[in-house]
């Protein structure tokens, strides 16, 4: 679209985006004394990014993996090992970790795509657990004790900071970057191949799409993002152990996408922001009263959302009167904005 043809709607939409980005950019300036709140933001950034990685495979391709914690954990381990054992630069280690985990996932997991539906999901759980068991028994990687990353002077090059703000900004860039990538994929030939495979593999084959090939591509991209998030996690917490790969964490990357709306590129973002804020709030408010009650409340909220909005919050929102109202009244959407 050329600038000259921008409708009022397009302009207002852009203003809204710029506004949101500005708010996100200045938040650390006001929260520098509140490391806890900063931590929640960082948590939202990397969990939502993981959820987008999951959603490429689950939401867009229809391959429901429950092994994504293992990709992230493996990414964290590979990066941490490069940093601690080989003394490599953390940024370079992150890149290597992405390449190694992506390659490994593509090669090792390849045969799993011969399985479909729930069988695929089961194998992805087994696959994740295998990696975890391997790491637990791996002397070089510290077995169950895990790996600590060296502390030291603050340095961007060393991916090491005293305050949370730099991690916040790196996390923010990560989530925005991955979001833009997902949007690009969604509108690309690749994205259409993935959606066709999700809807019907026979149809995909009948119009020249090789399902196996594109499923593996999606897995490689997805696991590379997971490895990036894993590396970030390792540098941020400066300590990792095999619990990172617990299967229950995989579920935490699935939920934001499902609750937000797996059919939408924005689903994991909306779901991630809401779910993490909610679970942190519940933990603070209720966790101390009766241990575990926060988890029960969390589960209830999940049940209600999934029961009444199976297409996710965005699925509901995109059809709702609220959106229409916002579009027409605030963003001045007109007929012209409805193309195709």
């Amino acid at each position, binding site marked *: 679209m050329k600038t000259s043809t921008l409708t009022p709607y397009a302009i207002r939409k852009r203003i809204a985006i710029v506004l949101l980005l500005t708010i996100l950019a200045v938040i650390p300036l006001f929260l520098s004394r509140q490391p806890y709140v900063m931590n929640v933001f960082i948590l939202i950034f990397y969990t939502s990014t993981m959820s987008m990685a999951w959603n490429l495979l689950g939401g867009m391709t229809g391959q429901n993996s429950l092994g994504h914690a293992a990709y992230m954990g493996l990414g964290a381990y590979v990066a941490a090992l490069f940093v601690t054992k080989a003394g490599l630069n953390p940024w370079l280690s992150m890149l290597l970790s992405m390449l190694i985990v992506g390659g490994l996932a593509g090669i090792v997991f390849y045969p799993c795509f011969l399985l479909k539906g729930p069988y695929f999901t089961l194998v992805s759980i087994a696959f994740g657990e295998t990696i975890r068991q391997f790491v637990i028994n791996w002397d070089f990687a510290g077995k169950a004790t895990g790996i600590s990353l060296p502390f030291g002077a603050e340095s961007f090059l060393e991916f090491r900071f005293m305050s949370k703000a730099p991690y916040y900004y790196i996390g923010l860039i990560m989530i925005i970057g991955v979001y833009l990538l997902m949007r690009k994929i969604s509108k690309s*030939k690749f994205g259409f191949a993935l959606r066709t495979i999700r809807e019907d593999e026979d149809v995909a084959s009948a119009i*020249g799409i090789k399902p196996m090939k594109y499923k593996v591509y999606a897995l490689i991209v997805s696991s590379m993002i997971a490895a990036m998030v894993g590396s970030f996690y390792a540098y941020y917490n400066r300590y990792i152990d095999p619990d990172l790969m617990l299967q229950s964490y995989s579920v935490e990357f699935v939920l934001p996408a499902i609750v937000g709306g797996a059919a939408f590129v924005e689903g994991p973002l909306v779901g991630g922001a809401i779910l993490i804020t909610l679970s942190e709030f519940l933990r603070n408010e209720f966790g101390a009263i009766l241990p575990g009650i926060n988890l029960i409340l969390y589960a209830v909220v999940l049940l209600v959302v999934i029961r009444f909005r199976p297409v996710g919050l965005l699925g509901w929102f995109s059809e709702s009167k609220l959106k229409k109202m916002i579009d027409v009244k605030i963003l001045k959407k007109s007929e012209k904005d409805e193309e195709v």
Partner: protein
Amino acid sequence: MENPIIKVESITKNFKGLKAVSDVSFEIRSGAITGMIGPNGAGKSTTFNMICGYYPPSNGKIFYKGEEITHKHPYEYTNMGIARTFQIMKPLGNLPVVDNVVPSAYFGRYGAKSLKEAREIALDVLNFTGLYEKRKVLAKDMGTPDQKRLEMARALATKPEMLFLDEVMAGLNPAETESAIELIRKINDSGVTIFLIEHIMKAVVSLCEHVIVLHHGEKISEGTPEEVMNDPYVMEVYLGKKGENNA
């Protein structure tokens, strides 16, 4: 026949104990509309699926423009210029109609380079197949006639030379059948060779220059629609003198 576009050499398909198709041979003339008829369960779709690479024949060979394609994968057919529809419609239900056709424009022989180009091709094809007005409707929300059309639109958007249609008129009322016949003729006029399976005799007679009859997995007759209809054995099968299915 001189240079048939498709040549089938005594193909057989066994499903476990069942012989669904046995020793069937025929040829499809380039540029023509060829039909296949036969009672329910005769093995028509099975024959069709073998030719389209959906499953390999247990025996026999299949040639496309003289080249053997017996063991090609279905996704290799698009580039060769062969497209198909499914008897049991397979709409990409959760996607709008236009997005059902866009993937064909990307992966077919138009080889669209951008979403804009792919959309243009898709909209052209939707226009051609009479689905333009429905372009924004979710595919699963359409009725049978439109889903049948969508099957054809999706196949056409790959820009085939050879189109396989499996009962695209089943479940249509007479008026809808009439317009489907028109559409098929229009596709053929645009230079696409067509092979179709159909139960509706009127359609077969008005469209096909050559008809193949299957019964119990065997080819029992072939020729012009007239020849076939007057074949005593075919009449016997169709009139059910021996208590067979009638179509």
